[in-house]
């Protein structure tokens, strides 16, 4: 996957803070997702499946979505920072998370129980809504978090020593 992304200039620059931007966006994006989960009765079913209270389920969800958001922003790099196309990449990520998490991991950790009927529809819709919102938010949340060019350019890591081989020092006694 990384090589597929790198061809599009994936590597985020040093002023970017993708983990932080993704985590913040991931948490904010749970708002529409929770609304959908409640509307379809899926939140109650997920709590039952996980043997947790509603609030504990929400807490676990926020933590998981913060981590997932951070992974999204780091993994998708330039695509995640795309103001116009970010939403669709986010939605794709939400779909992938649903496929991996809700459809595969959830039944595994709950001993084989899974949402069905309207609750299952709510789960998939909530993940798509979460992903779409995440994708929309990341570019806007990220930009103000960037380190400023002025301060970042003062770092010694980008200064004259960068001319040498990375981490290479002369053998002792040679100079």
């Amino acid at each position: 996957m990384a090589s597929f992304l790198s061809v599009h200039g994936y590597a985020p620059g040093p002023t970017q803070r993708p983990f932080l931007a993704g985590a913040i966006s991931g948490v904010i994006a749970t708002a529409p997702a929770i609304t959908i989960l409640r509307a379809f009765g899926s939140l109650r079913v997920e709590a039952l499946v996980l043997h947790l209270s509603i609030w504990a389920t929400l807490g676990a969800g926020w933590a998981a979505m913060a981590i997932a958001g951070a992974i999204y922003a780091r993994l998708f790099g330039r695509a995640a920072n795309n103001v116009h196309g970010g939403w669709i990449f986010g939605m794709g990520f939400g779909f992938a998370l649903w496929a991996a998490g809700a459809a595969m991991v959830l039944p595994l950790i709950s001993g084989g129980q899974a949402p069905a009927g309207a609750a299952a529809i709510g789960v998939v819709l909530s993940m798509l809504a979460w992903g779409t919102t995440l994708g929309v938010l990341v570019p806007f949340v990220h930009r103000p978090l960037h380190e400023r060019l002025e301060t970042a350019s003062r770092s010694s890591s980008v200064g004259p020593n960068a001319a040498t081989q990375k981490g290479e020092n002369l053998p002792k006694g040679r100079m």
Partner: protein
Amino acid sequence: MIAGVAGAAAMEVVLRGFAIAGLPVFDLVQELGAVVFHHSHLLGWAVGLGAHAFVGVMWALFYAYFFWSRLDLTPPLQGLAFAAVPAVLALFIVHPQMTLMQMDQDMIRVSAPMLLGTIGVREVSGILLSHAVYGLVLGSLYIRPVGYKVGSRPSVARKKSVRPRRPVERRRDGGFMFATGIECSYPTIDNGRWRRDELESCGHYKHWAEDFELAREIGVTHIRYGPPLHLVFQGAGQYDWSIIDEPMADLKECGPEPIVDLCHFGAPDWLGNFQNEDVAKALPEYAAAFAERYPWVRFYTPVNEMYVCARKSALDGEWNEQRRDESAFVNAVFNLASASVGMTDAILERRPDAIFVNSESSEFSQPCCPDPDVKSAAEFENERRFLPLDLIYAHEVSDRMRGYLREHDVTDDAFDRFCNRKVPRRSILGVDYYEWTEHLIDREGHPRSLGELFGWYTIAMQYYDRYKLTMMHTETNQTDASEGSRWLWRQWHNIQLARQNGVPLVGFTWYSLTDQIDWNIGLREALGVVFPVGLFDLNRDPREVGLSYKHLINMYCDQPDYRECKALKELMR
């Protein structure tokens, strides 16, 4: 988007066709609709169709962004290979989950055998067949994501960005030139039918105001900027300046000072290519019109990298005329050099103090062994690299090169016309350097990349020793973004060494401001693959090398011998 919708539509047409023919195929579209409308076949189908078209678009965008051009297959087969991903997901995740969604209960105990039990031969054949159709259609339609048909025009942003602009702080005459450039190549490919336009591919037409602002933030004093000749110069005496009036006004008002690149690897549609000798007459007319419209411009590159342009167009068969013969190469060189000389003269008539930065790619060929044929081939290439500069700088060539020119129909008179010319005093020899410009001539006589063996200083000195002109490092970058800072500082040490050794060196350029598109394949195909060499990526976020360049400029710009560059002052006198 079109390819995604078309792929989804083709998928449905094939499945409908099979259903009408009475073949037992699984219909994913109908199943998708049935999740919402259990009881209405028609409504379910309509909703399923819409949802499926949307999914088709989503997958197409993923294909375009992450998958396209990664496999060495024809486009339809690339699409087919990609379609395996949604097919597998549809088979093992979406279909079993949709079965669960159609149940009348909220929770169910599931198991792998139960979920896999929903997948029969009908499902496997239907899903694989329909996704294969989708992939083939998607791959067949998504073939040239960048560039445009010759004769058409890209849209250009007419309004400035809302970001506040600030003038370059350190604009002073006679200081060392810290430069970058806007990548602006515009050759044609596909035998003159498809226009590569890096200004469009890299988003400059849309983001030009932001690009100039970023250049100012980095702190460069000069910017190599090539207005799109093919869009501005629409015929003899016909110009569309509206494309560049605003950007030029912005540069005039706020800087950085432009080094205007008038011809960058391509000719206008109506002139065709560099085999057309009218190029040598038409481009001076354009240069004259440009100098009259923007009389404040002082720095010009009449024709960029003439050797590279002639070689790629007429010897390697990749751009413009796409020829592969020595006569065509010689013809292109003479047309380009004639154009350059004519443009220079036309500008000087209107701006006598204009300064000409004649940038050329430094090339060097090293024989791999003492084989006389290999040594001879290397010697020839090491002389041929100078040919366009020899013409515009009125430099004599060897007997061997004279013989080569005669062999390809260049009369001594035609050559001597260049040799008898007076070279403008305010000429700067621009020497570009990349890690692929040093070559090893192998035993078969073919060039192979040597990487950075001798370095810019050694190669540039060969050019300096030949022409004894004021010099500038006019282009460099590094293909591995993680090595960009290292490359920048190493190039900079080459600059310092040259200056210490008395070479009149007036500027340095990191090329380019943003990442480029498809330069990893020399623009010969329209793949749309990012070449991460910019100070900023294509989102306009800084790369490490951008920070390093700002660090470097801040460190050196106020040093006495950079604040006042004697060689440049002398040239501008």
